[in-house]
């Protein structure tokens, strides 16, 4: 099978843009300049006027603001904020300088608006051509009320998808593009570029990959730990949760509901609460150390270095992640386990397989087969697992005082520290992009081979 599938158009329609330009009448061609003109002529006055209004609004916006926004996008502002001594009032006055961040934001927003406008323009052209064709063939042309009604039936997807799409566009896609742009600027506290900054191309990427600098070496060590963490966090939860649910589901286990309840109870407590509790319990003077002292397991003034020793801290976060994650795994895997055909087990038992063999030859392969998509999502979730690390250890302990990351910092918590605490926005954005690339490669490779890809779903 070729990697690229041939593009098949499942939605053939005679009313395309090229057809409109090639075969459309005068009025349709005029609607290329004057949006909605064709519609107005062919009995769709309100629709045509709406298109016209969109065009007018866009042009007015571009003249008033848009062109200026776009032209500033290249330089990102040049006027510095200055302090001027005001003789008359005997005070310092600040002149209004350019704010690169706003220029960038408005610029990106204008570009997005323009793309939307192009879509609207294509829509107008198609609709004008359709109206023309239908009118010439003497068929019925929908009037505005009928168009509105069609939103509830054949065009329901437009009605239902538009509001969520607007939200996604404004609050997910726009910020993402904005942030990706930041990766190519020098927007950071270094050299005081918080107000005015410039495009620097791939400088930030170079700085991060240069393993001789402090930033570069931190990046590689954080990346290594992130992958180790994601691997252990995913599979420890998976295996442990599976064993636990097998044990609870065993025929001879009594009070199944009670055991399940005990474990599920802990995921009913909000995650940030249980993580904060865990953190306070594991402090040098926290409950766990106190308990160990009371039991006489450690000396009265000693304490176990849960979050102060790098190796201890790393093991601690993984172990606590098991505590946090296993109930969820239990919930999700129980149903899948119950679906394994019973005949398989009976046959295995008749053939004299023991419990361990049954687990490795039947249960595990079956589970892996069914839950591969789940495993991928958990893995990506763990690479991006901000809560557990930030609330538990906060990335501590910091062993190298020069670096900005501690020993348990993941890429995401490091990103958070760099942007929110240190205000190195550009480096933060680069890390975000790199995280995405790593995840995208991993997800693509696995999804392509998984069942869910072959049947339906993304990609």
């Amino acid at each position, binding site marked *: 099978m070729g990697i690229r599938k041939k593009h098949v158009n*499942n939605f053939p329609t005679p009313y395309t843009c090229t057809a409109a330009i090639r075969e459309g009448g005068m009025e349709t061609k005029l609607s290329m300049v004057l949006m909605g003109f064709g519609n107005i002529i062919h009995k769709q006055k309100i629709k045509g006027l709406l298109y016209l209004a969109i065009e007018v609004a866009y042009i007015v916006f571009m003249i008033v603001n848009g062109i200026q926004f776009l032209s500033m996008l290249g330089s990102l502002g040049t006027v510095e904020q200055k302090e001027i001594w005001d003789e008359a009032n005997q005070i310092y006055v600040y002149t209004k300088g350019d704010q690169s961040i706003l220029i960038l934001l408005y610029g990106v927003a204008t570009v997005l608006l323009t793309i939307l406008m192009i879509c609207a323009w294509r829509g107008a052209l198609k609709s004008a051509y359709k109206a023309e064709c239908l009118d010439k063939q003497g068929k019925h042309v929908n009037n505005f009320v009928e168009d509105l009604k069609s939103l509830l039936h054949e065009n329901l997807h437009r009605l239902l998808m538009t509001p969520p799409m607007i939200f996604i566009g404004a609050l997910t896609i726009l910020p993402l593009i904005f942030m990706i742009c930041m990766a190519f600027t020098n927007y950071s506290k270094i050299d005081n570029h918080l107000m005015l900054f410039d495009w620097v191309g791939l400088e930030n990427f170079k700085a991060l990959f240069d393993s001789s600098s402090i930033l570069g070496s931190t990046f590689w060590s954080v990346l290594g730990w992130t992958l180790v963490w994601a691997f252990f966090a995913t599979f420890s939860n998976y295996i442990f949760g599976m064993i636990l649910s097998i*044990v609870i589901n065993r025929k*001879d286990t009594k009070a199944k509901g009670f055991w399940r309840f*005990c474990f599920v109870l802990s995921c009913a407590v909000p995650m940030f609460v249980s993580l904060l509790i865990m953190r306070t319990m594991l402090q040098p003077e926290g409950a766990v150390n106190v308990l160990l002292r009371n039991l006489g397991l450690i000396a009265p003034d000693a304490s176990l270095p849960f979050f102060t020793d790098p190796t201890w801290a790393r093991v601690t976060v993984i172990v606590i992640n098991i505590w946090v994650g296993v109930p969820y795994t239990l919930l999700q895997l129980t149903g899948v386990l119950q679906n394994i055909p019973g005949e398989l087990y009976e046959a295995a038992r008749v053939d004299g397989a023991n419990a361990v063999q049954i687990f490795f030859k039947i249960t595990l392969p079956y589970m892996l087969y069914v839950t591969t998509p789940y495993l991928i999502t958990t893995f990506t979730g763990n690479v991006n697992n901000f809560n557990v690390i930030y609330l538990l250890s906060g990335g501590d302990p910091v062993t190298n005082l020069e670096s900005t990351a501690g020993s348990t910092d993941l890429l995401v918590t490091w990103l958070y520290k760099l942007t929110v605490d240190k205000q190195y926005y550009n480096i*933060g954005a680069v890390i975000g992009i790199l995280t995405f690339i790593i995840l995208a490669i991993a997800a693509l490779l696995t999804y392509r081979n998984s069942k869910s890809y072959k049947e339906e779903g993304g*990609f």
Partner: protein
Amino acid sequence: MAAKTKVRSAKKRRFINNTIVHVVLAILAFIWVFPIIWVILTSFRAEKGSYVSTFFPQSFTLDNYVKLFTDTSILNFPQMFMNTLFIAVCACILSTFYVLAVSYCLSRLKFKLRKPYMNMAMILGLFPGFMSMIAVYFILKAIGLTEGNLIKVALILCYSGGAGLSFQIAKGFFDTVPIAVDEAALLDGCTRWQIFTKITLPLSKPIVIYTVLTSFMAPWLDFIFAKVICRANSDQYTVAIGLWNMLQKEYIDSWYTSFAAGAVLISIPIAILFLFMQRYYVDGMSGAVKG
């Protein structure tokens, strides 16, 4: 005779196995429940301070709960509670509508942007969730939503903004509603909108309830977005930031036991919702109409 001893020894072995399994389960269950018990005990502890030298409290009191609701000078818990409730209700309505609408479209309607949309959702899901958080803050600031009471609107937008991307579970559920029902309704002259509201949604009660509850719970559980957007506006804090603040260096000594009390208070409704939802969650996974 030999057969009998064999049966007996097999029985004995099974008994030993069962005992071991139950003991191990009991130990594990204890480990999982232990922190919860400890918080409940701490919330009733009379001795102040964050760290004490005894594991179990020496004396019990209700003061921690009283303090939470009466001492509003530094950390105004009742106000935080009302803030969160308001945000949660609004965000819940918006995102429930978005999730259900998008899932229904992707599951039932055939349109050109269907595949591209699903691919886009998957790609967006791979970006670190709050990578764009700073950018979202700038955008909200640019439209003036980061001052005063408008912060609540900003938070509502944040919590419901990405809702259209988390359609997988609901879409999976809608996929299991037999398409023949839709076709019959179409023949009877229903519009697609009527099918959605009058047939699909009533048939999908479990997933509707599941969506409502998850989106209602999100503002109670999130604390990073709230922290970045609220900044220093303490009158707009949500419960999560409040609880987190109680553990900061300057408050931890006097507020530690109240933190435990607050944690218990928040956990009770969430736990009830969760245990209630769990049933629908399992149902949601297994489909709507059982054959």
